[in-house]
């Protein structure tokens, strides 16, 4: 026992150094002021938080939440069938499927996102094709819309959803499906009552990963959304780098971290079944 406690020390130090201390710094700065040059001035103040309750920022805050949740839901709807297909395919197809899903990661995501600009802009490939076939008379404005941002987000984060669900489905004992069938379940009922609950851990992990990544993403919004559809992370970035209002940027970060924590806790609560609670209790 004592020895294992000592072994924990490096991990705890690492966590403190790279997670806890930066968090504390952000929280402390959020309660401070700044001078006209943008330097942080020591002394307690709620200015950062007060600025947030402006209808402009509240609107962006709401948009960010909606976009993140919608991105997560779409990712889930697209990824589950894909993960299910890969997990149940022949070993060779499984390997190829996983490689194809991870290949985009080999390319810098800035470049991948710029590729969407080429596809979506007014003189882009999609518009040219639609014009060519005569389906539209004038180019459609696709780039710099909320739809484009959503598309970019979903595109970027699908692997984060596919991989955990794939792992959960792959690890599932397939004999359970035989048992369900033996007990009279149709394929759909076996999926609904056995496969879906058994892959829940993967769904939960995937949703949290995609949600958190979306809320923190500002590059996609910059490139595909233009200046119009800003997210909270764009504001945080601009407060730190452009406007040099660190206290306000920190306050926004703190507010959003707390919001996300509450959302994730509620989500886990909702997803957790009686069986999970029993398991935690006995572990």
């Amino acid at each position: 026992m004592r020895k294992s406690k000592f072994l924990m020390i490096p991990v705890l130090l690492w966590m403190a150094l790279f997670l806890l201390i930066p968090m504390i710094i952000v929280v402390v700065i959020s309660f401070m002021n700044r001078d006209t040059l943008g330097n942080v001035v020591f002394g307690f103040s709620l200015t950062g938080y007060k600025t947030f309750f402006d209808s402009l920022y509240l609107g962006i805050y709401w948009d960010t939440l909606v976009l993140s949740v919608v991105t997560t839901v779409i990712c889930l709807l697209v990824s589950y069938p894909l993960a299910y297909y890969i997990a149940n395919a022949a070993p060779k197809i499984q390997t190829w499927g996983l490689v194809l899903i991870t290949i985009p990661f080999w390319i810098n995501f800035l470049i991948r996102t710029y590729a969407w600009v080429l596809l979506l802009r007014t003189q882009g490939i999609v518009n040219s094709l639609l014009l060519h076939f005569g389906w539209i008379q004038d180019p459609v404005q696709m780039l710099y819309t909320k739809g484009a941002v959503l598309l970019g987000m979903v595109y970027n984060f699908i692997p984060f959803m596919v991989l955990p669900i794939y792992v959960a489905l792959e690890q599932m004992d397939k004999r359970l499906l035989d048992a369900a069938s033996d007990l009279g379940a149709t394929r759909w009922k076996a999926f609904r009552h056995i496969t879906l609950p058994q892959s829940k851990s993967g769904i939960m992990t995937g949703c949290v990963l995609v949600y958190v990544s979306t809320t923190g993403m500002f590059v996609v919004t910059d490139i595909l959304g233009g200046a119009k559809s800003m997210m909270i992370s764009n504001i945080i970035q601009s407060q730190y780098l452009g406007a040099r209002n660190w206290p306000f940027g920190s306050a926004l970060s703190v507010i959003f971290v707390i919001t996300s924590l509450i959302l994730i806790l509620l989500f886990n609560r909702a997803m957790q079944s009686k069986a999970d609670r029993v398991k935690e209790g006995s572990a």
Partner: protein
Amino acid sequence: MIDLVQIEKHFEGQVVVHPLSLNIEEGEFLTLLGPSGCGKTTILRMIAGFETPTHGDVVLAGQKVTNLPPNQRDLNLVFQHYALFPHMTVEENIAFGLKMKKMPKPEQKKRIEEAVAMTQLTALTSRYPHQLSGGQQQRVAIARAIANKPKVLLLDEPLGALDLQLRKNLQSELKHLQRSLGITFVYVTHDQEEAMMLSDRIVILNNGKVEQVGTPREIYATPKTLFAATFVGENNIFSSAQGLFAVRPEKLRPVRELEQARVTGVIQDVLYLGNVHKLTVHLDHEPMAVTIALDFTDERPWQIGEKIGVNWSPKDEVVIGA
């Protein structure tokens, strides 16, 4: 109850089950016995509907079910590794089949109560599978199957993963359960002792072929093939001009008067097992050893290295085919 009509199964050109016809009676406890890879599980899976026979038909209670999926067959399988649903309690596991049949709730409750009472699980209904011991999980698997009141219960080495003592207890419970339910049991095992103890009839399988079908008594007393003779119980195989014959160890008698003996040999080993002791005798004129079982009434001191004669009565010779 079940008719297997010339069923056979090929996997990738390999014959796993050779053409097999078998009639399983209502209320019968039938065991498919054989070493691993003999095709016994494949036969069971064809009856359950998880495999389709390459040729032949499966007839259940007069109805041809060869191409019906498992969920449309009125029988249930107890899986080798139980396959309990980990996210459901014991009660939910047992209720699953009833729910799939859209049985009314009060009826479900009654069936569950019956099933848990019969399998002694009443105190454990709200537990999850991971909170149960191996023996308890096995009972849940059986309860989940019998709650459906199937016409036939199929059991795929249900006791294979349990330790010996527990296995012995569950064997007698199973036998008792089958008698009180009165339904047909088709049981798969590689354990010949288990098969002898439980079955009304045994089908001995080897390399996908039936070696012999018979009651435990027939199988033990009159094995038809060399495989059947040696797979079930111990046996001594002698060859004569007419072919092979077998004599059980307890039918051999050791004698000290060598000139009166049919064969002679040297004692290689003396094993004391309490109720019996066994002599291993290396024969003089044949390159083989025979085993002689002596009951507790024999108190003669047998010594390793001693030269003895072995006798048996001709009526105990069982002629076997190749």
